[in-house]
């Protein structure tokens, strides 16, 4: 059922206005691999993830994302990606399950309930997200990123705001889907870096 994806990041640079954020980032990843991006605060980790997800454009360089050798254009990339980041805010005026239904592309109610149970949000599923704590919001972001079982999972500081039980759930979920997914984590946490086979320091450009 799962397709094989591959991702080539070739010499990506990003400027904000006139300021250079990073330059010549190159790496690639295949399904089954997990990859980390580290770097000091403000070095552009989150921006890098957004560029991969296709919601921002790089100043230079190219990203080739293909499934079974067929290239997927940037506009369609979002259907293959799961993305969780503190910058992604679900709608405050919707409940958790409404937010998930909005984000997911055609999954049934059982799958949604299962994920809500897993991340411990089931009792709160019909509360408006505006009333959630930061930790609960983070759990919701992770559910939204993983609900469609995406080919590529991009996680930006996934364990931020999470308590220890939340982290345990996250890490065991990552273990479960590792074989079928490309996982890219932007983080400075040792626990998360340990999850990944290889990685890059965006400031030093060392792999």
């Amino acid at each position, binding site marked *: 059922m799962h397709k094989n994806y591959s991702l080539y990041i070739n010499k990506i640079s990003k400027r904000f206005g006139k300021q250079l954020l990073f330059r010549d980032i190159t790496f690639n990843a295949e399904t089954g691999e997990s990859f980390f991006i580290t770097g000091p605060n403000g070095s552009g980790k989150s921006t890098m993830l957004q560029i991969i*997800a296709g*919601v921002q454009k790089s100043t230079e360089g190219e990203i080739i994302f293909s499934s079974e050798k067929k290239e997927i254009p940037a506009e369609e990339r*979002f259907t293959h990606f799961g993305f969780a980041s503190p910058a*992604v*805010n679900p709608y405050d005026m*919707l409940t958790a399950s409404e937010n998930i239904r*909005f984000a997911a592309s055609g999954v049934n109610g059982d799958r949604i309930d299962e994920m809500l149970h897993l991340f411990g949000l089931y009792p709160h599923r019909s509360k408006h997200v505006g009333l959630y704590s930061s930790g609960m919001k983070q759990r919701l972001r992770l559910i939204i990123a993983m609900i469609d079982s995406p080919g590529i999972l991009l996680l930006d500081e996934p364990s931020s705001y999470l308590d220890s039980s939340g982290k345990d759930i996250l890490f065991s979920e990552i273990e479960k889907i590792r074989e079928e997914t490309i996982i890219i984590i932007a983080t400075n946490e040792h626990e998360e870096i340990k999850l990944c086979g290889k990685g890059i320091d965006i400031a030093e450009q060392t792999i």
Partner: protein
Amino acid sequence: MQSRLFKNLRKDFLIEFRNRSAMNISFAFAGITTLSVSLACGGASLTPQIHSVLLWIIIFFSGMSGLSHIFIREEEERTSLFLALHSDAENIYLSKLIFNIILFACITALVTPLYLFFMQVMPVYRLYFILTASAGSLAVASITTILGAMVAKAESRGSLFTVISFPVMIPVLWISIQLTSDSLEGGSPPELRSLLFLLAFSGVIISVSYLTFKFIWTEQ
């Protein structure tokens, strides 16, 4: 992709309906402007020309007060990234356009009868009057949707919205004012061509917006 459009629309209507304050304020603004105009005129007898100018000024500013909200909300609540990650630009544009057309149709449907009631005027060509109000408000909604998307990304949104909307809106206002004045006055029946003009204008604006929206929404 059809269902994507439906999901976006459902989300917008749910959010706006639960947080009614923004919509209520738009309606209140439209109603109060109409009332205050009729209060200020105090039963003075005005020519059809002036009636239609007043009516369209009210409609224009009601649109200015309410129609950029649907995009600005995404920026203010910082949800635009969430939206961009789960929908393509075309469906975002279409859902916001449909929302704005419906909202503005409701606003016009509130303003126009109120105006006629308080100012004690009755159009001679009623069908033309209704058609003009509908076609004019369609044109206003289609212009403000794309311009609202631009303004949402800029600073000092409220006043900028009026500044950038006005020059593009002038043709619509002129034609609508003329048609409304004709249908209030009687005499020679209003021109069908001018009505078609309004529809053609909306059509051109909507298709160009549909093609160019992604340049506003995603970074180039």
